[in-house]
């Protein structure tokens, strides 16, 4: 019995020693220079080599982390969030604070204000429709209403409103990832600063046609009349090719332009409901 115990101890110890030595020397002999950060990240990782991360082992994952630009889509199921946070910290990839932005739809030509001039009957895809022709209304710029933006959003933040035929953004859910901006073939969607308490003002139109043409196609088009530009005290509004644009960095949210716009193309969001001017005047008179 004791013999067996001794053999056990001896053999295993010898085995351990021999393997350690062999490994050490092969490692020395066949050394390959690599980004030292890979080693470090690997140390942070659990080392279970389970492949759960989709990589072929922890080292490959570490390499992936080091090489990747951001930590998006990289996740180790064994280590979980804690480990991932550590890796991100080590690699100095804490997300920098950004001014919160939100997607804004710059077309308000709904079914009433922008009558259809033909019926599109193809595959429901804005991209397909845009590549085919100018659109099913007389406005060549406006929303095509097939919902590519909705489809592109991973957060369910942009939804087509069947009544208006236009997409609507859910501010709470929108992460300003920009997927819808890329998806829209008409380039209608813009990422704008969310604004204090979510208050923002923007021109909800991108029609560059001359006033008359634009107006004929859509009742709520920006006609480039320059009234808003004139009324703006902060130089926030520029007009080019018959279209007004409000710079969200300059806009002070005074809302004068909103009142001024003859076609209601300028939108205000998240402001308290405004008492109609006339009503105010009447109250004052009394």
């Amino acid at each position, binding site marked *: 019995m004791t013999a067996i115990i001794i053999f056990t101890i001896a053999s295993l110890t010898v085995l*351990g020693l021999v393997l350690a030595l062999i490994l050490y020397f092969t*490692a020395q002999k066949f050394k390959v220079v690599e980004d030292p950060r890979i080693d470090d990240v690997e140390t942070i*990782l659990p*080392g*279970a*080599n*389970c492949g759960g991360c989709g990589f072929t082992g922890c080292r490959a994952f570490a390499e992936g982390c080091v090489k990747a630009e951001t930590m998006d889509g990289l996740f180790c*199921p*064994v280590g979980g969030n804690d480990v991932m946070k550590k890796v991100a910290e080590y690699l100095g990839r804490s997300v920098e604070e950004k001014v919160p932005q939100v997607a804004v739809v710059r077309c308000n030509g709904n079914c009433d204000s922008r009558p259809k001039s033909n019926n599109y009957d193809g595959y429901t895809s804005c991209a397909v429709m845009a590549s085919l022709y100018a659109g099913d209304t007389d406005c060549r710029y406006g929303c095509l209403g097939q919902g590519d933006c909705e489809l592109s959003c991973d957060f369910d933040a942009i939804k087509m409103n069947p009544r208006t035929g236009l997409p609507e953004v859910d501010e709470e859910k929108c992460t300003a990832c920009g997927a819808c901006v890329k998806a829209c073939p008409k380039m209608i969607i813009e990422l704008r600063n969310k604004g204090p308490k979510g208050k923002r003002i923007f021109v909800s139109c991108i029609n560059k046609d001359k006033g008359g043409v634009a107006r004929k196609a859509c009742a709520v088009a920006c006609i480039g009349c320059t009234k808003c530009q004139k009324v703006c005290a902060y130089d926030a509004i520029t007009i080019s090719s018959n279209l007004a644009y409000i710079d969200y960095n300059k806009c002070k949210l005074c809302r004068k332009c909103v009142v001024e716009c003859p076609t209601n193309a300028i939108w205000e969001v998240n402001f308290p409901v405004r008492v109609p001017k006339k009503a105010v005047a009447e109250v004052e008179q009394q």
Partner: protein
Amino acid sequence: MSKLNILTKGILKENPVFVLLLGMCPTLGTTTSAINGLGMGLATTFVLMLSNVVISAIAGFVPAKVRIPSYIVVIASFVTILQFVMQAYTPGLYETLGLFIPLIVVNCIVLGRAEAFASKNSISDSFMDGVGIGLGFTAALTVLGLVRELLGSASAFGVKFIEGDGILVFVLAPGAFIALGYLLVLFNKLKTKIK
């Protein structure tokens, strides 16, 4: 994290089978009946518990480069001890579980917990973690075993409740995959409900 938390997270939140999808071989290979699943689960828990404790104790001394071999030796030792004990006292179960007992060594969960938890936490926490994850594993295997046994042999924990054979596939290899597939969906549903 409270001790209780460490103990219970393995059952739902970090269930090694349903959430982390680790240790799939014993999960599929030994769950022909609820009893077998339970036995395999407990055997794994035993190793997990002890190796977590020991690794937590020695982690401070082990140089990084020999981390994995050292842990493996520790785990393998406990597995071998488990083999001795089972051969001596539960030879029947040992025979049924067969190859999967020595293969606990390579069960990703065991090494995974050693690395991810035990090497960074106190001995008592590591013990709790081992027990918790082990129980999660055990629960999963028992449930899967139970489902397969119910469908495949029309019995539960070896107790036959209706005459007849059941749907044989479920005790065979394909049934293991299919049953686990559907259980996974149910588990996810359950998890979102609880949340």
